[in-house]
């Protein structure tokens, strides 16, 4: 059932993601050109993969001359966090039965869509998810195409500052959650500190470090929150 109001709300909520993705994808598009990809190949990568960190990792390993199999394994590992994110988000769908709807949500479960949708605070309709995913996707694919053709045409300081967009979005969501209860801040602090420690001190890869930090903080949260606070019936 298509609901125009829900689609518009999804597009509205997706706008910050669009901004962040578009500017990041400009850099990705440029990277594909300098790596010797054709225009179609660069844009195809963004169209069928739709993943920030995984795509940059693929290009870096490709440029380093890695074997195909080792690139695929590395990309899988950096994406393994999505198993948990998709599992969590699947429990928030208003109508879990539609096959097309689930395929769309699976395709669109990127970090930012997952986070925005999760904190919506209600069951998610496919119309809402379609608006949210479509807006993010347009930013990612159009940014790749324009970045390939024009490079990062934005002034250097704008391009550099734009990196903050998605982090600001995450920090804004964390601020709202913290206002509702200090426990949210504690749980997020655990994952932030762990992830910083594992990456900066122990030198773990960002994919593995993220996975470990997220899981430990989740278990900590589940012990800290009561069932009622977590909204379990």
């Amino acid at each position, binding site marked *: 059932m298509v609901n125009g109001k829900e689609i518009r709300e999804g597009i509205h909520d997706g706008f*910050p993601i669009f901004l962040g993705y578009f500017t990041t994808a400009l850099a990705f598009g440029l990277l594909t050109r300098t790596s010797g*990809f054709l225009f179609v*190949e660069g844009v195809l990568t963004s169209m*069928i*993969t739709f*993943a920030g960190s*995984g*795509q940059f990792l693929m290009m870096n390993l*490709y440029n380093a001359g890695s074997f*195909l199999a080792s*690139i*695929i394994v590395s990309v*899988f590992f950096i*994406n*393994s966090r999505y198993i*948990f*994110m*998709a*599992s*969590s988000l*699947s*429990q928030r769908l208003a109508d879990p039965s539609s096959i097309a709807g*689930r395929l769309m949500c*699976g395709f669109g*479960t990127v970090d930012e869509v*997952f*986070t925005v949708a999760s904190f919506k605070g209600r069951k998610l309709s496919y119309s809402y998810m379609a608006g949210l995913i479509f807006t993010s996707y347009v930013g990612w694919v159009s940014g790749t195409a324009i970045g390939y053709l024009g490079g990062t045409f934005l002034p250097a300081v*704008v391009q550099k*500052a*734009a*990196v903050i*967009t998605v*982090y*600001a*979005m*995450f*920090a*804004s969501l*964390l*601020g*709202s959650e913290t*206002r509702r209860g200090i426990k949210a801040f504690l*749980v*997020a*602090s655990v*994952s*932030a*500190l762990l*992830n*910083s420690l594992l*990456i*900066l001190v122990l030198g773990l890869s960002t994919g593995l470090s*993220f996975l470990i*930090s*997220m899981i430990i903080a*989740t278990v*900590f*949260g*589940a012990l800290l929150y009561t*069932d009622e606070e977590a909204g379990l019936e």
Partner: protein
Amino acid sequence: MNKIILIVSCAFVTLLPRIVPYFASSALSRLPRFLRKCMVLLPVAALGALIFPLALTDFGSMWYAGLAGVAVAFAVSLFRGPMILSIILALLSTAGMLLAFPA
């Protein structure tokens, strides 16, 4: 290396872990209570690690520009500011720091 094979196989291993859980959602809803609670709390646990340390390291030696943006966005929403205001003020703070304190 055939680039099309590279692109398609990387897309496959990206989409697989995202899509499969949606087709196991009824089994997931029957998991023990504690694990279902974990799935509810996963988003907030992810938030911290999504922000740190990459919001700082993405700016290299000018990490303080990232910190300023994140702190401003957090503070704005803590005092009930809308998300778009958080983002605009974060952008201005980060750009301001980059211009005021170049590495």
